[in-house]
């Protein structure tokens, strides 16, 4: 990879770390900035010129974007701009929620099965079974069991993602268990949990973290797909997925209902993926080659 010539004259301290970072990993920085932007937008939604995203105004339905309605109005007369901004909250919540929950649960399961043969035999069979069911299908089936709510969507998608995290962690644990430094630690009398905490966990963090970002991205898309099918977040709560789902019949006459949330969703998922790539590069240069 061609490196720009270093200005020999300039003292090393003056090479600003930020500029270095930007030059070496432009995509990651871009991704992180984008993500921060989306997050800020979600948090500050009430102050960014929005109206109540739930208020229905049949008279004003299906208006093209204009001065009054920056992204136009949907079939119920609701302001698409406001719904898109508030929708960021839901989509980000789903993404982060699923990533967090599946990581925590997956870690727990992976650690347990990595160490205990019996637990491994029983639990991993179950995980294998779950993994063999296509994730979207599993999520739809789970959603069909309960009433539509944000919590249930997060839960349903989490359940379909947990097996992969568990498998990843278990793999790391299995390979680490045999490592000399672990055996040494155990021989030196370090307790089981201390070994876990000081030796095993730090080594699982890197791959799990990278995995978590990809889970976040895929969860956001899965939520959109679930809403598209009609098994996602409740319709009046705006999420990018269900704004698009409601607008899909009008695609040829009022494409803006799908286009705006679609762009936002794609950009956010893109940002998360870029951050994930960057994390992977940073945390383990070896992994960088792998992906």
């Amino acid at each position, binding site marked *: 990879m061609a490196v720009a010539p270093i200005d020999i004259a300039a003292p090393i301290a003056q090479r600003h770390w930020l500029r270095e970072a930007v030059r070496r990993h432009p995509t990651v920085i871009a991704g992180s900035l984008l993500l921060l932007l989306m997050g800020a937008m979600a948090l500050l939604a009430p102050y960014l010129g929005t109206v109540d995203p739930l208020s229905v105004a049949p008279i004003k*339905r299906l208006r093209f974007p204009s001065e009054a309605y920056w992204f136009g109005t949907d079939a119920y007369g609701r302001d698409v701009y406001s719904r898109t901004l508030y929708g960021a909250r839901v989509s980000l919540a789903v993404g982060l929620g699923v990533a967090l929950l599946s990581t925590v649960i997956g870690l727990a399961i992976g650690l347990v099965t990595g160490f205990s043969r019996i637990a491994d035999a029983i639990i991993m069979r179950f995980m294998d079974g779950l993994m063999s069911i296509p994730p979207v299908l599993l999520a739809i089936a789970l959603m069909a069991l309960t009433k539509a709510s944000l919590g249930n969507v997060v839960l349903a998608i989490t359940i379909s993602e947990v097996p992969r995290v568990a498998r990843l962690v278990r793999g790391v644990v299995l390979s680490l268990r045999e490592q000399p430094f672990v055996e040494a630690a155990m021989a030196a009398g370090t307790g089981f949990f201390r070994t876990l905490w000081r030796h095993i966990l730090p080594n699982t963090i890197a791959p799990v973290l990278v995995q978590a970002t990809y889970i976040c991205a895929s969860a956001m898309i899965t939520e959109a797909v679930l809403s598209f099918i009609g098994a996602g977040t409740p319709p009046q709560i705006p999420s990018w997925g269900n704004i698009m789902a409601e607008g899909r019949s009008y695609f040829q006459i009022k494409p803006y209902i799908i286009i705006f949330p679609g762009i936002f969703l794609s950009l956010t998922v893109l940002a998360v993926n870029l951050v994930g790539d960057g994390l992977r590069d940073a945390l383990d240069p070896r992994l960088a080659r792998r992906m």
Partner: protein
Amino acid sequence: MTKVSTRFLRVAAAVALAALVAVPAAHAQSSGKTIKFIPEADLRSLDPIWTTAYITRNHGYMVYDTLFALDEHFKPQPQMVDTWKVSDDKLTYTFTLRDQLKFHDGQPVRSADCIASLERWMKRDAFGQALAQSVGEMKAQDDKTFSIVLKKPFPLLLDAIGKLSSNVPFIMPERVAKTDANTQITDPTGSGPFKFVKDEWVPGNKAVYVKNPDYVPRKEPPSWAAGGKVVKVDRVEWLYIPDSATAAAAINAGEVDWWQQLPPDLVPLLQKNKDVTVANVDPLGSLGVARFNHLQPPFNSEKMRQAVLYVLDQKDVMTVLAGDEKNWRTCYSYYTCGTPMASEAGAAPLKGKRDPAKAKALLKEAGYNGERVVLMTATDQPIVNAQAQVVAEELRQIGFNVDLQAMDWGTLITRRTVKESIDKNGWSMFFTWLVGPDMINPALNFPLRGNGEKAWFGWPTDDKLEAMRAQWMEAADLEAQKKLAADIQQEAFTSVPFVPTGQFIIPTAYRKGLHGVIVAPVVFLWNVEKE
């Protein structure tokens, strides 16, 4: 691989791709004598007696025939029947069947088939059940003549057996009609103008019908379900396309000929295409229904239900549901507007200027304290969802603590069977719609009934209304019927079994080569021809 071979592959691939894309006939056009039709729903059950689903009813009209049928003046006309007489005491009806009526398997239609079919229908259908209570016996004089002997007069007998909408008393072969009324039939043999090609049926995708060459249509011109059913094509394919954007693109491209029901918002898109005609061929339309749970608070209180009458705005609901004003009208009646029994008797609370103050006052009188109300909506049913979203907001405005719960239709119709309170999975309101023919009078209008636990979901109890309904069934003439119907409606606007949310028409679209589409509340495929 060598450099030469890779280059060759790349060129070959490019040529192949270009060839595929360049082939002119990009859209599989529908051929001469076949109509490709997008139906309103997916055909799942073949038994129009066992289920009331409209799609199965439509299938029934394709493959079966009826003894009598309703014409555009709401009068039952003979269809399979040639002549009939009624005894002076009005207790014996004798029917003689037309000649040359045959089932698809070649067997002639006999009286026994008719009697068995009517018996099965009377077990399931509400109108039929009412009739059954008056029937003494049905006996066949010979293969073409049979009679129905009543215990007491039933003036609406012909209307009953000529019923237009679900459940329609279709005539099936005796062996099929003898199937228990709670079990689905599997044999679609009928005597109707089309034959069902069961081998080509792909549920969820395609249902195929071919012309029945042995069908002998009546001589009269077609009028709703009555008159001559002349089939002018060889084959009809029902293609279920669930995604309306895809369906719109398909009809625009000529891949289908006729889209039965398009979302009103897509009308401008299709109107731009000069090869497609968008029309309203449904004279009665459909009516929105906002239904209460009368068994549980808060809507077990009459005042609470009346409060809703003062805030529900039919114009708002209909605008969201059906878009352009051409597709809807307000209907401040418990009957289908545009039919004889409809009037605005007692409709002032619903019709007048919206009065949130009065509504709030009623809430106070009823002692409403902010308890949670559960409104159920179905995300996969736009008509249901539109009503729910608008009404939920209107209720919130006057201080209702609305919990709008979304689920799919399957879950909703399961949940609405629950009679318990809302913390035991119960509900307070749900929304649905009925087609015009199902609400034209007190006999057919089942949401209007007040027979408590035996009533339709919501279970209103209104003995006064029930008594008046019984009187209506025995009313002497049209004038008496109208008066009683108006009285029933007055009572309804007081006890509020449900709130009518407006009348809407779902437009249909067909390509310019199609002629002869019958204007009727039910879609019929006979009389339609294709250039």
